[in-house]
């Protein structure tokens, strides 16, 4: 089902031309500009595949190309990430139930030499960190190539309908979706930034002093990006927690639900149970209610709510119970979620028998944290350290976000899980620092770095910054 009315967003305006795609041979209505899985979900299709070994149904999970839950066969090509692949009129989409069998009649394709893009700075990821990095690197005089595997810029900002906190220059009082628009406008204004969407970075390599980012555009074209410096701003990936049937379709990462309803205007379901009362879980509850979806409860294993008080109060006012010291025991349902069983836990985190509650829901949202996407940094050989305060393994870097490999920078959630506001500040620092390291920016830009560093320190000085600071102590070196 598609959303038609929304207090903040206008989907009618955004939807492109109507097209027809085919799922298992059946025609389905879709709109240009939306990804395959969104169109399928709007048509009520939740089951995207069956696992090869145990024939278990698979549905959407992350919706931003980070997991393997939505792989389908598209126009005969197996294992396509349908969450980041745009619909095209006449597309044939089928579920995968077994490892693919390849056609015996295929003709050898002509080898096309890869397109070559030369820039001063190559930025991987067009979220808040990557966009800010691009803007400041460009202003400092650098020629920038910015790539993102999603079909739009903005990263996770494009689904944030809430207003931001902080200072005015950090976009306080502005909704995330609006911030994405503003930053995209700024990027477009700058002629020395070239944007490549639907382009995955598959390798980060060093060729003497040059960095090479190997990109694949639209699943098929090889593009080589070369630069004097690279900024990795690849964001994060949603975490999963163990419980019985946690793979049932209808169990989504919180971000996937936001992508469904806030980015593409697709109703994620009718009745939702949210696991996790951090800021993401709380904001999600509010956004679901805005979209006309019933939120049955928020379940939190800790004895107290993790998110901001204002968010929790708002959700409570709307009548959503927040069950602290509770956990999910299992999901039930045949092909997709039909209900969830929740229980209270004791001080040893063990479920207390007799406290089970049943929630009749068709969606279970997991808002249980994120882990940084460090794959490219790991692959190129940057030093990695485990810092649970930052969400897991992150790279060692200095105060200007340069990693242990000269000319390779990191910013945003891929540097450690934090917020969009800090991601933007880190993006600014990394963008300028990369331009300095490439020998392009003039030394006056150092002042801008110091300014952003000061703002970061201020933002992290509150009680919520304590954990992050503890993590940073482990990984930031002189």
């Amino acid at each position: 089902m598609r959303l038609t009315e929304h207090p903040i967003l206008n989907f009618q305006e955004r939807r492109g031309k109507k097209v027809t795609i085919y799922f298992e041979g059946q025609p389905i209505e879709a709109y240009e500009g939306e990804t395959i899985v969104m169109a399928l979900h709007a048509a009520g299709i939740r089951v995207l595949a069956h696992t090869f070994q145990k024939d278990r149904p698979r549905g959407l999970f992350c919706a931003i190309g980070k997991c393997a839950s939505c792989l389908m066969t598209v126009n005969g090509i197996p294992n396509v990430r349908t969450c980041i692949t745009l619909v095209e009129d006449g597309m044939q989409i089928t579920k995968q139930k077994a490892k693919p069998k390849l056609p015996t009649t295929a003709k050898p394709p002509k080898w096309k030499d890869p397109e070559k893009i030369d820039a001063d700075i190559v930025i991987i990821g067009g979220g808040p960190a990557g966009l800010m990095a691009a803007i400041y690197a460009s202003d400092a005089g650098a020629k920038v190539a910015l790539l993102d595997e999603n079909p739009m810029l903005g990263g996770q900002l494009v689904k944030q309908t809430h207003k931001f906190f902080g200072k005015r220059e950090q976009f306080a009082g502005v909704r995330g979706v609006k911030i994405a628009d503003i930053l995209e406008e700024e990027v477009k204004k700058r002629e020395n930034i070239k944007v490549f969407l639907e382009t995955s970075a598959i390798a980060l390599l060093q060729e003497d002093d040059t960095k090479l980012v190997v990109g694949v555009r639209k699943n098929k074209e090889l593009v080589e990006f070369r630069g004097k410096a690279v900024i990795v701003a690849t964001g994060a990936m949603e975490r999963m927690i163990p419980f019985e049937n946690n793979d049932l379709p209808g169990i989504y990462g919180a971000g996937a639900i936001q992508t469904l309803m806030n980015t593409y205007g697709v109703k994620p379901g009718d009745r939702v149970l949210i696991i996790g009362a951090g800021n993401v879980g709380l904001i999600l509850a509010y956004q679901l209610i805005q979209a006309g979806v019933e939120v049955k409860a928020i379940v939190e294993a800790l004895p107290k709510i993790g998110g901001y008080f204002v968010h929790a109060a708002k959700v409570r006012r709307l009548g959503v119970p927040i069950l602290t010291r509770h956990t999910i025991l299992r999901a039930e349902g045949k092909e997709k979620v039909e209900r969830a069983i929740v229980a209270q836990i004791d001080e040893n985190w063990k479920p207390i028998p007799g406290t089970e509650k049943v929630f009749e829901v068709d969606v279970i949202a997991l808002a249980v944290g994120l882990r940084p996407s460090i794959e490219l940094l790991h692959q190129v050989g940057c030093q990695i350290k485990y810092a649970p305060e930052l969400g897991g393994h992150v790279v060692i870097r200095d105060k200007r976000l340069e990693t242990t490999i000269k000319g390779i920078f990191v910013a945003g959630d891929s540097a450690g899980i934090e917020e969009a506001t800090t991601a933007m500040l880190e993006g600014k620092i990394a963008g300028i620092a990369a331009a300095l390291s490439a020998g392009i920016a003039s030394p006056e830009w150092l002042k801008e770095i110091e300014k952003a560093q000061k703002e970061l320190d201020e933002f992290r000085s509150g009680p919520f910054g304590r954990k992050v600071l503890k993590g940073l102590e482990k990984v930031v070196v002189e």
Partner: protein
Amino acid sequence: MSEVTIIGGGITGVALAYELAKRGYEVTVLERRFIGSGSTFRCGTGIRQQFGDEANIQVMKRSVELWKKYSEDFGFPFTQSGYLFLLYSEEEIEDFKNNIKLQNKFGVPTRLITPEEAKEIVPLLNIEDVLAASWNPTDGKADPFKATMAFAREAKELGAKIYEYTEVKDIVVENGEIKGVKTNKGFFSTGTVVNATNAWAKLINAMAEVPITIPIEPYKHQAIITQPMKSGQINPMVISFKHRDAYLTQTAHGGIVGGVGLEEHGYDLTPTYEFLKEVTKQFIQIIPALKDLRILRVWAGFYAKTPDSNPAIGRINEIDEYYIVAGFSGHGFMMAPVVAEGVADLITKGKTNLPFWWYDPYRFERGELRSKAIQMG
């Protein structure tokens, strides 16, 4: 005190430990990292008898018999799914006709087949420019992880000692007699040392001050594996010299494993973009449908090459008792069972019935290079 100390815990070292332990010897294996970590676990999994000289054909015929026996006895996967050499020129066909004649003489049932017959064996093949193929259904492949661990397990069962993360620092030789081996984990006293370190053989030879020249040099060779596809689509090892010495086959899990010949001298193991591009370019010519499969991983391992691509196997007469078993030039995995059997006989009986004279380590010094062993990847 160990009677025999084997340096190197690749498949050659652990299989030899098994053979010696079986013959009642006290054996110790010293491995710098973990079992198989050097080159074995990085190999292309293929096992073939299609060589172009009498010695290698006979040796590999025995190796295949042993692969079959040990896979059954120890319970690891080995399949005789064949080797298919795609031939694209009359010249290549002539060469292979001669090889086939030689292989048939020793009972290896290779035959020349038509492109259409090749396509029946591997329906995904592009046979457009293929003129013929050399096909031996008794060649095969094995799982390097399970095979190596099985040999290590069986060796230990028979009393062999395997020390991992134990790096050899020096070999103590007094008056031409081996006294022991110094490692980062202490001194191992022993009377016999076997150098089974393949790519690192020259470093160990230098420690023992081996007085003859045995040219074994490390070359980086890379390989890839793709996303899995339905099993049974590429059963044999498919070889094409026309496509930069490409080899490829399907693993039990379903992924396509393989590589092309793009080597680099030295001890670096960093995978390269150049290889990734080249392997993609070549593989889709041989099997066009692979264009739609993603490559999951690329990695590198060493070919320990000698000037004639044949290993150096034998006793070094000047040092009592020192054996060299290295320089396999990309064939170490497939040869391991027969090498282990032959070298165990050399150590315990002073001779083997196998034509190991072909691998004489003194041949380089004497300038008696062999005809080059057929090699790909």
